[in-house]
């Protein structure tokens, strides 16, 4: 548990001092929102409302990929990955610390993106803000768990920026389907279907267990 908090604290402090990752992710996802706006020229409000959940999650996934690609960059540059591997701590908790840091950074970016997204597509997200935050948190948990695991893998390969999306996008389909369907219900003013929450929770649990156990094997000494 101390390992988790120590790593989370270290990542957040170093990010707070430089603020480069969050700024890059946020700017990138704002740009995605702008590009998506131009991808739907002349769409009427009802049409926008129908496709908005998917578009929002496209922006979120792109931002997450950008951030996750840098999740182990600092460790790699300073040769600290081996130190992490050799630390007298359970690697599962090292993983949880890194994943928690990614989750926090992504949450900040997601909040800012939602504001920009609401303005760009003239959607009033304020009334559904609380349940939407819950759905986004469940989706991000799944993205950050396999994302952190395979970021540690991708960073040790050639073409690492390309490798990460190729590895995790096919795995993220259940997360995206659950998150998009739950978001769609919220934007339509309906109750979130139990099936999509169930799907998100089960997927998060499976991904967290696989990543927690798998992280043992992806760090080199």
């Amino acid at each position, binding site marked *: 548990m101390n390992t988790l908090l120590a790593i989370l604290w270290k990542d957040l402090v170093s990010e707070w001092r430089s603020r480069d990752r969050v700024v890059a992710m946020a700017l990138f996802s704002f740009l995605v929102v702008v590009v998506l706006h131009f991808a739907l020229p002349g769409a009427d409000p009802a049409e926008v409302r129908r496709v908005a959940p998917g578009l929002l999650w496209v922006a979120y996934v792109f931002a997450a990929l950008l951030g996750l690609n840098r999740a182990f960059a600092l460790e790699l540059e300073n040769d600290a990955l081996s130190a992490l591997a050799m630390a007298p701590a359970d690697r599962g908790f090292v993983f949880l610390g890194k994943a928690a840091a990614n989750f926090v950074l992504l949450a900040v970016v997601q909040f800012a993106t939602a504001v920009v997204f609401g303005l760009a597509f003239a959607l009033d997200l304020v009334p559904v803000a609380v349940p939407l935050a819950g759905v986004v948190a469940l989706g991000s948990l799944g993205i950050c768990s396999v994302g952190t695991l395979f970021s540690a*893998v991708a960073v040790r390969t050639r073409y690492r920026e390309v490798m990460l999306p190729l590895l995790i996008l096919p795995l993220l389909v259940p997360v995206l389907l659950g998150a998009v369907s739950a978001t769609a219900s919220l934007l339509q003013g309906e109750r979130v279907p139990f099936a999509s929450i169930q799907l998100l929770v089960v997927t998060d649990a499976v991904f967290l267990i696989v990543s927690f156990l798998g992280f043992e094997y992806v760090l080199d000494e």
Partner: protein
Amino acid sequence: MSASLSNSAVDRAANALRLPTGILLAVLTGAWLAAVARAPLDSVQGVIQKILYVHPPLAFAAYAGFALTAIGGALFLWRGDEAWDRLARASAEVGVLFCTLVIVTGPIWAKGTWGRWWSWDLRLTITLLLWFVYLAYLLLRSFTEGSERAARFAAVYGIAGLAVIPLNYFALDMAAGRSMHPENLQQGSLGAGMGWPFALGAGVCLVAFTQLLVRRIEIEALRGALAERVAGAPGGLERS
């Protein structure tokens, strides 16, 4: 010839299976071709229905390959024996080959019977996603330096790829609802005279899968032995 290379169960099994599966493949392929030629024409679909004798059998082999990839990877992580990694790697490569053929034969049949090449239906989407996962698996292996590291990374990814299948199944079932692809899990869904060619097709594909798999494992084992010999030779060359 290569019997002395390794004493692991994987290599022994591969050696034992090589010749029998080769012979069986030749015999079965002949019988299967004859059976398919003589099978009755489907009264509704016509000749295109004969893809039935190829398409699902290819899928059986592809799924077998992906299951073996995860099992081999898990055993490698557990036991640390490289032979299990050879099994995982060979299964992934052969599985991708069969999966590609499934994805090629499926749309041909779909165009003929459903009137369109593709439908985002449960089975089709899951198979397509599996194909992406295992192509990424092979890319990961070739982009990772160091065979031991590549084996570890790939094993973890192969296991994650298997774990995601039931999740995908549940997710796509929820999203897509009823599917176009037939279930055909119940007995007696094949017409009269179609059972034998289908069973032979399944046999041919599984035997062909095994034959390719053991050949691929053998190549990997020989490669490993060569690397060891080069490294161990006096004044031997550094292996790049």
